[in-house]
């Protein structure tokens, strides 16, 4: 589904998050100058490896962390950098999060009914006996039927997939407009991942929700998303329609991710990786493009400042000077990487 309402559900403009490390005022920039938007009813896939900053984005949007800079708009309304107290609670009603590990994100001591009922009570969406009825309806909605039976259970009585459904029901209870799903299937068994992804897709379609779907799995991102954004070392490096970004990646890092994904029809030794090495230390980033040290196509220009985002096709942008006809004409500086 493509966004029809021109006001995006979420807009991030130049959002940056720095964390201080150690005692001497040193910082690392986990999210660097991030600009992106999620349309109403849209699923934006956010792909990256650990340390890329993709989970930090979710924590910034839910305000588990305050951003260090930049602007954020929810449904067209400016969200102040520092939100506290009542304002923060009201804001959070609109933005809910689904965590990765359903074994960690449910308090083992509370019943399912308590956990799912809390957002209803906190935000005054239901009162008294009405809470139980709504909890049961929510649980039914996420496929835990009959909901009333599940409400009395505690997390240890449920399987991983069932727990994740409870987590989804809790997120829905607040009646949010935006859901941030942080690797919601990677802790689950392979056989139930699709069910959870399908449930999320159904909810987006039926409830008109918008979703940020964070994952390290390209194939999962392609399955879920309308558009996909790729992050590397805190930077947005590519964004565009899902089929374009996966089908024809324009940033060498996205190409590397694609070549590293399992391909049953392929052959392990025959597929060559586009690049070697590992994600750089965030405290020690190269001066230009963060991928330059690993990139087989790197030019001298790559280490002279961060490349801009180049628009390759409508809505498909990549942060790579290969798309600049002048800079791309420079000779590659370390083509050897591709060979090893």
């Amino acid at each position, binding site marked *: 589904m493509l966004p029809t309402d021109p006001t995006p559900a979420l807009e991030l403009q130049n959002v940056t998050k720095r964390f201080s490390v150690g005692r001497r005022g040193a910082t690392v920039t986990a999210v660097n100058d991030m600009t992106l938007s999620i349309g109403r009813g849209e699923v934006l896939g956010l792909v990256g*490896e*650990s340390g890329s900053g993709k989970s930090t984005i979710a924590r910034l949007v*839910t305000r*588990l962390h305050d951003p260090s800079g930049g602007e954020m708009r929810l449904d067209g309304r400016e969200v102040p950098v520092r939100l506290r107290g009542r304002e*923060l*609670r009201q804001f959070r*009603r609109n933005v*809910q*999060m689904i*965590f*990765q590990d359903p074994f*960690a*994100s449910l*308090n*083992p*001591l*509370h019943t399912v009914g308590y956990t799912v009922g*809390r*957002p209803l009570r*906190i*935000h005054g969406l239901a009162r008294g006996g009405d809470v139980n009825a709504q909890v049961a309806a929510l649980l039914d909605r996420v496929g835990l039927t009959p909901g009333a039976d599940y409400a009395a259970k505690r997390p240890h009585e449920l399987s991983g*997939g069932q727990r994740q459904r409870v*987590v989804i029901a809790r997120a829905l209870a*607040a009646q949010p407009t935006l859901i941030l799903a942080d690797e919601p299937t990677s802790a689950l*068994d*392979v*056989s*139930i*991942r*699709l*069910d*959870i*992804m*399908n449930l999320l*897709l159904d909810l987006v379609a039926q409830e008109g929700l918008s979703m940020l779907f964070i994952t*390290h*799995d*390209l*194939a999962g991102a*392609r*399955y879920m998303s309308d558009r996909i954004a790729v992050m590397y070392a805190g930077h947005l490096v590519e964004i565009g329609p*899902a089929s374009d970004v*996966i*089908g024809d990646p324009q940033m060498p890092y996205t190409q590397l*991710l*694609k070549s*590293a*994904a*399992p*391909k*049953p*029809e*392929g052959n*392990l*030794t025959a*597929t060559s*990786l586009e*690049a070697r090495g*590992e*994600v750089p230390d965030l405290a020690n980033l190269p001066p230009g493009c963060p991928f330059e040290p690993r990139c087989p196509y790197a030019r001298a220009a790559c280490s002279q400042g961060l490349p801009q985002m180049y628009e390759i096709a409508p809505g498909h942008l990549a942060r790579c000077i290969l798309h600049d006809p002048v800079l791309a004409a420079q000779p590659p500086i370390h083509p050897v990487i591709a060979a090893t």
Partner: protein
Amino acid sequence: MNGALTILRRSPRATAGAVIVLIMLLMAALAPALTSYSPTSQEYGPWIIPGREHLLGTTALGQDVWAQILYGARKTLLIGLMAGLIATLIGTTVGLAGAYFGGRVEDVLNVITNVFLVLPGLPLLIIVSAFVRGAGVWSIILVIAFTGWAWGARVIRSQALALRNRDFVQAAIVSGERPGRIVFAEMLPNMAGLIAANFFSTSLYAVLSEAGLAFLGFGDVSSVTWGTMLYWAQARGALLQGAWWWIAAPGLLIALLGTAFALLNFGIDEVTNPKIVHSVGATKVLRRRKKEREAPATTGTPALLAIRDLDAGYATPQGQVRAVRDVGLDIAPGEFVGLAGESGCGKSTLAFAATRLLDAPGAVFGGQSVLAGQDLLDLSSEQLRHVRWKDYSMVFQASMNILNPVIKVREQVYDAMQAHGITDKAALDARATELFRLVGIRESYLDAYPHQLSGGMKQRVVIAIALALEPKLVVMDEPTTALDVVVQRQILQEIDAVRRRLGISILFITHDLSLLVEMSDRIAIMYAGEIIEEAPAKALYADPKHPYTLKMMNAFPPLDGPRERREGIPGRPPPLSAELPGCPFFDRCPSRMPGKCDKHKPASVDLSPGHRVACFLHSDAVKEYPDAAD
């Protein structure tokens, strides 16, 4: 209060402690019924030895010791429990507030806590109690609580800090919960065990402190407590007079009460922080079944590892859990065999059992695991030690955590080799360098400490160690699951290159079937403890026979082709404790045949060379059970 009952049920230590405290509470409560003497009356005659009249004798002043013990229990217990309670309250509040609010509040509270921690307890007690001398029981309680809360504050703070970062607390914050509710409804209940343990240890401290203070003559020595009894006994030279009972009775009771608190504390710790008991030896082999039966699919060459009729699992209080059920699997020399299945299907248990690495309560119930002609299940622990690392080695998902953080990588690579007799420095060095080159790490990292390496590098080091003695077989259980995709692929390519160069066999276990298809020569699919399909990798991918295999193949969204909706596998696997008469996949199977699949177990049948499947869609053969009694 269910938690308290659980602790008592599971821990005999806690039960013993609770019984002792309960008896003492009863003694205090029923003191008038248990003795007709007054504890303060001095009319019974001095130095009477224990006997009929005076159960525990009398004091120099002619007081009855038994009566003093009973009435003294009241104040001693009151001081112990109340001081423990108050100290725990202060400690919990300070600890939680510091952890929750953070920032300046935490800094200030930390300073205060640390000051109280370094102040020596007893001297402080003496000074403070000197000022409130004679002020009665409550001032003693307050003084003790005041000096005893800091340790608890610190422990509770660190636990609360850990809890605060747990996902469920974060989730509650995102839900919009207020701070009070986060602390009292989300965090505090999860710390109940710790707080209770803290209460008992401060109560113990309080009882001992009161005794110490009273013995030194501080506090209110005119009141009767077990501590003041000791004071008077000492002051009146009880031991010089041979009146051992006057000292022994309160002394032993204080020791007993201390023991009771310590037992309760220990019991709570035991139940809330279960430690994994590591068995030092090899996996227990409970019963052997020697009968040779249907050999599993082979590639024609004699197997390097032949697993036959392997039954293994866990002995639990609820009974035996058979996680591996009658499994046969062959691995040829140089072959890469993939073992796939959902979590809890028994794939790891199979690998651990076949290599005798399954820790108690795990055990092998029957079968064979023959490596190069030698049944590993027949070997003694001593014999196993010779075989491990040399003939076969293992790499697990969390293997990188086996690296000792304070020892250089080089020494740890040497270790396995030295254990098997390679001691020549030059040979060790040459081999280590060679191994690092094999797994794609610069040899300069040999002199690094593990924390200087990334997760991917550490896992490479562990793989290098596993290859050190050129074993014939390496068992790898999800060795790259915790790593990022790019690093994962780099390592897998290196593993593949090494095994081709050295001709070693690999048993590779993972839930990622799409990865296995790409890497393996042959794949076995496990479900509910059984191998339900086994085939050359490409044949399995092109033409999966078992409905479960087909469903698993479809469970991975593709990177190309049309974007269409796919369905997962509804339901969940049966519990491994269940004994089902039919096919374990019956409940979830789209092609099930009621009356057949749920009544009989399909036998594993070769459909084409090397491709065997246990499913009635392909053969009517019913699995025969050997007589388990033979």
